[in-house]
């Protein structure tokens, strides 16, 4: 365990998903995954679709899906202002797989009247969710 706990808050416009001390947290920064410990340098970045994971001070690991948002890091605290967050156990793998396939299909068809940005973000969301399931299975093994 590191020397002192980090205070982590995961907040969306609808709810507070976590507010409490953690030993360690990781979040998908726009330029790559970030691992955050106590006394991290202050940092401000956007988030991309991916997974947030953290281990609370009582040694419980949490895994969340995040669709995007803002991450603020202060030496003693981390704040994640997320657009959408879903707990890994509430995710539905089948619908994620379906969403990924349909997004891929739409992209490969290359129709003119489709909204590329929207489909790309759907694809990114679905892929991130599927990645979370892969990690969950790995943890169980």
């Amino acid at each position, binding site marked *: 365990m590191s020397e002192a706990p980090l205070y982590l808050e995961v907040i969306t416009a609808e709810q507070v998903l976590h507010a409490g001390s953690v030993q360690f947290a990781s979040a998908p920064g726009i*330029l790559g995954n970030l691992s955050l410990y106590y006394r991290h340098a202050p940092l401000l970045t956007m988030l991309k679709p991916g997974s947030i994971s953290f281990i609370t001070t009582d040694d419980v690991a949490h895994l969340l899906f995040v669709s995007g948002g803002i991450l603020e890091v*202060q030496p003693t605290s981390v704040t994640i202002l997320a657009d959408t967050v879903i707990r890994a156990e509430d995710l539905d793998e089948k619908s994620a797989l379906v969403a990924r396939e349909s997004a891929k299909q739409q992209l490969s068809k290359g129709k003119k009247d489709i909204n590329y940005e929207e489909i790309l973000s759907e694809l990114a969301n679905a892929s991130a969710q599927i990645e979370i399931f892969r990690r969950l299975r790995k943890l169980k093994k």
Partner: protein
Amino acid sequence: MSTTQLYRKQIASVKSIQTITHAMELVAASRIRKVQKRMEESRPYAYKIREVLGHLASSQHHCNRRALMQLEQPKKVAMIVVSSDSGLCGGLNLNLFKSVVNQQKEWSEQSILTEMCLLGRKAMSFFKRFDTNILAYAEKFGTFPKVAELIGVVKIVLDAFDDQKIDAIYLCYNKFVNTMLQAPQIVQLLPLEKIAPLGQREHWDYLYEADFDFILDTLLTRYIESQVYQSVIENIACEQAARMLAMKNATDNTADLIQSLQLAYNKVRQAGITQEISEIVAGVEAL
């Protein structure tokens, strides 16, 4: 028409008003719980984003973005005034408008001009009577507004700020304290007020992944959106609470009114009967 009939008609009409006010009270009471829940859910986000931007404003980043610079003497400020769409909610809107007008007067003494950005029909019908510049206007949010409905107004105000047409943005709304108490608030949105982060050295700056301007722009838009959204939601909660109270008072008043009308009616009716009897008696005596 005889007096008794007149009274009976009056009593009937007051009774139907009572039914309406009572129904409105119940509707407001059932809505308030849902709105209050919604308001409390989105409060943490609104507070936190304000805090993060406050931290950002207190950092030592050297840039010439207007959002981060406090002006000593602003020339023109914008006020976003949040009001309700419908009336019958007591003095809620008027209390807010009063504090807005007072603030306006104070600024105009320092020769600061104000522009108005109005949300809700009541604000429009109030401020169009005065000589005010109206920058933007939106109405009809219903009980559960969506962030998307506010984006247009937010964009107009932010663009005006970026184009240096205005130097500061203030948000005026009713803060929901509890069901009995709503407090008019005037808060500065831009330029950002500094909030020093806990346990941080005096001179520090963030590491910015990606471009600073990109992050700041995104943050600012989300910040204004969330603040305006939060204030609209709070104002709706206030509106329902104020309406519940106003309608409860109205219902109580109609009960008093009915009682006194009933008393007057009884008196007139009794007087009529007495008169008729004495007429009959007089007639009998004459025989």
